[in-house]
């Protein structure tokens, strides 16, 4: 998404805040495919992802007036609403789905192609900083963010005690923040 697109989304969300249904439909067309992909990745299941996408847009319709451009890009705001719900939904399941991805899949997650210069630069920077982390803490961060893993699931997947996982994550967060500044 480039700068002009981001500005477009800002205009759309302001119209949605004024109950403009046409703008809401346009916002959906523009952003739903990306949001849906993020929901499917976390939930690993189509029907749940559809439900969560639906909840997300109903929330967007009701909360559009609380969006504040100072707090970040529209797409980031939408993703936050969606991920919050997707992760809650994943936690409520009796059994979390097994992640069926291969070890390599995390690497392809990192290698995803940038569709434009703006995004590409931010991604390259994040990837470079993730690269500086040690192997298992880096995987913990990626599994948590992209796939919604809990501390327990991370402990199992990465064969480390919970306490270790927690401190890996905290140290990784600190290092990422410093690296990205």
């Amino acid at each position: 998404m480039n700068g002009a697109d981001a500005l477009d989304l800002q205009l759309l969300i302001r119209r949605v805040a004024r109950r403009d249904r046409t703008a809401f439909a346009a916002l959906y067309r523009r952003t739903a495919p990306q949001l849906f992909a993020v929901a499917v990745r976390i939930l690993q299941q189509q029907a749940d992802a559809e439900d969560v996408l639906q909840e997300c847009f109903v929330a967007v319709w009701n909360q559009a007036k609380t969006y504040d451009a100072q707090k970040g890009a529209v797409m980031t705001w939408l993703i936050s609403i969606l991920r919050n719900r997707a992760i809650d939904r994943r936690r409520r399941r009796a059994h979390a789905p097994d992640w069926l991805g291969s070890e390599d899949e995390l690497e392809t997650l990192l290698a995803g192609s940038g569709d434009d210069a703006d995004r590409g630069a931010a991604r390259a920077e994040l990837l470079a900083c993730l690269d500086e982390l040690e192997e298992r803490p880096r995987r913990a961060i990626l599994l948590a963010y992209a796939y919604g893993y809990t501390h327990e699931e991370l402990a199992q997947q990465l064969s480390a005690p919970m306490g270790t996982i927690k401190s890996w994550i905290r140290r990784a967060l600190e290092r990422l923040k410093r690296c990205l500044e």
Partner: protein
Amino acid sequence: MKYDDPRLRELLAGEYVLGVMPPLVKARFERLMAGDAALTREVAAWADRFSPLDTTAEAVAPPSHVWRAIEQRIGAPLATRARSNAIDSILGSLGFWRGVAAASAMLAAALLVFVLLRPAEPPEAAVLAVLTDSSGTPAFIATRGQHSDQIDVAPIRTQTLAAQRSFELWAIAGGAPKPLGLVPPAIGKRLQVPASQLGSGDVVLAISLEPENGSPRAEPTGPVLFQGKVLGTLR
């Protein structure tokens, strides 16, 4: 926990965005954030830092019924279309006939799913029609056993349906649509219809979105969400 330590606040905001907080801790953090603009900014900053990872999930268009459900939930009025419009748009659209082709292609897959999910069905149950949504994804299946004059119409997977709404099945054979009853949205349930009700010739089955107890009129009043041509002959 001391929430005024800047380092801790930053870490908690990061953990919140990662999604690793247990539910109770998360709820407490959200209460705290509601009255703390600086903490909200920390969270937004972390969301922004991680956002490049979002686009690594390859965008995929959600099925069209998701948007329909959203429209219902935000109180959009049900689209009231004249019957002729609804029917003409089904039969006349190139997209529909493409849909029929796609449905045929997906028939084997749908049938397999059906057989796996409905072991109680006699093995000779014949698939009469696969009803797809506007993207061509199979959603409902109509079957008939060889020795039964009943037709079963059942969802292939559970469909989202808002409160006080229903799915109504119609048979369209040339002229006026004939209402066949309400189709349950949940998998494992079905609508049974006497085969004779379907009519003859080229028959299309369509499911429209209606008020709770079905269309108040002798024709669909809501949008047609799913449709499929009856394959083969009924006689």
